[in-house]
């Protein structure tokens, strides 16, 4: 009989990581669409690095930046009473960093795909930059953005390397489904891992299928 608690934790982590990655990713993606953004190619490269960087390297950076000896880590601990690393918060941070490039890439492509004349028209019709973004830019980029969010959720759900480095593998605390599957395989309990493997596989395939459908409709329209 499978213990589903790691899977439940994975869903919780993926939920919060997707919200964070979507918020940050759309803002960064929007900034990257501006031709006047200074150093946007460098920022794009840095933001995309987690896609190709070894998880251990990314995890190392997070530990250095947010660990107990860092300024951010100490401030966090002073305010909230617990550290970021080796907690569920760390698992959310790890999953967010892993999925952020997917949202940024999708958001940038979706937002750049909107005819800039429509945004100019909104401005001349009396809309400020925020209203033009919310009422014209965002709805017209919605399909691409939703595709990015779905990819981010699927990616967050299955994060392994960065989560292991930043949050550890603490059963009942930071052990997500991907880590639990690894532990079960290591202890020759393949059958017990089967349930979680099936769920993660199904969600990934469904997410990718829906992403394909969304972007296909976008191409046709």
């Amino acid at each position, binding site marked *: 009989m499978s213990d589903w608690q790691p899977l439940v934790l994975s869903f919780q982590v993926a939920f919060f990581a997707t919200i964070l990655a979507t918020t940050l990713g759309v803002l960064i993606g929007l900034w990257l669409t501006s031709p006047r953004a200074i150093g946007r190619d460098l920022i794009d490269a840095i933001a995309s690095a987690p896609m190709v960087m070894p998880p251990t390297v990314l995890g190392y950076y997070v530990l250095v930046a947010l660990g107990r000896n860092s300024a951010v880590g100490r401030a966090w601990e002073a305010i909230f009473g617990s550290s970021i690393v080796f907690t569920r918060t760390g698992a959310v941070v790890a999953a967010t960093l892993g999925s952020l490039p997917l949202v940024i890439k999708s958001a940038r492509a979706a937002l750049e795909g909107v005819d800039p004349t429509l945004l*100019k028209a909104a401005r001349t019709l009396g809309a400020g930059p925020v209203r033009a973004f919310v009422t014209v830019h965002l709805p*017209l980029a919605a399909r691409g953005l939703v595709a990015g969010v779905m990819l981010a959720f699927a990616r967050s759900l299955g994060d392994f390397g960065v989560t292991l480095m930043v949050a550890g593998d603490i059963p009942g605390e930071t052990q997500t489904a991907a880590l639990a599957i690894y532990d079960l395989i290591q202890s020759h309990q393949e059958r017990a891992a089967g349930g979680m493997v099936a769920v993660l596989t199904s969600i990934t395939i469904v997410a990718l299928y829906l992403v394909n459908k969304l972007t296909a409709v976008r191409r046709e329209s």
Partner: protein
Amino acid sequence: MKVERTLEVDVRVERAQGRDFVLQAKFVAPPGVTILYGPSGSGKSTTLGAICGLITPTAGRIALGDEIWFDRERRIRKPVEERGIAFVFQSLALFPHMTAAGNVEYGLPRKMPRAERDKRAREMLARMKVAHLADRRPATFSGGEAQRVALARAFAPEPRLVLLDEPFSAMDRELRRDFIADVRAYVDEARVPLLHVTHHRNEARALADRVVLIEGGRITASGGVDELLPASRDMLDDSLRIHTRE
């Protein structure tokens, strides 16, 4: 009684159109139709962009009556959305995710009650003879219908200045004549300046009260339509003549 305001433009835009193009434009557009006439790449659209605030000039001043919209020296720059401009783009730029009524409502004041906005939008669509399109989206419009909706959207907020960036370029002659009549009627009633970019001589002659000639980023002449765009002979270069076979 309506206050009549004249648009005064005296600007320099460097590195315009993403290249080493310099626009130096000085002219006035009193209430009525002023045609900005010149070949492609002469700086017509850049001029409109600077007037509406989508492009920030390097130097100069733009004012409508006694209201200063841009003054580099005095560091005045009124935001685009506060200038009260109607801009009809060449592509029309109708919002594809909104109905015709939604497009027209978009430019009406937010403080106006929703029901009144809807009523005003439908009235304006009816005035432009496209009331039947109110609940349909732009993807289902013909070219002529889209242009009528675009004009309804432009005129509904009662703009203080109207800018037309060749919106009639894809229309056949008959349709264009109808639109010219609609635009003329609006300007005569509202008594606002309308600046219309075109390189169609007959279109210019049919609409213009005044003509401003622009070439290579410079204003070369301004004055009456008969003086600058005579009906019988083409005074301009060959690049413009191709557009006059109507």
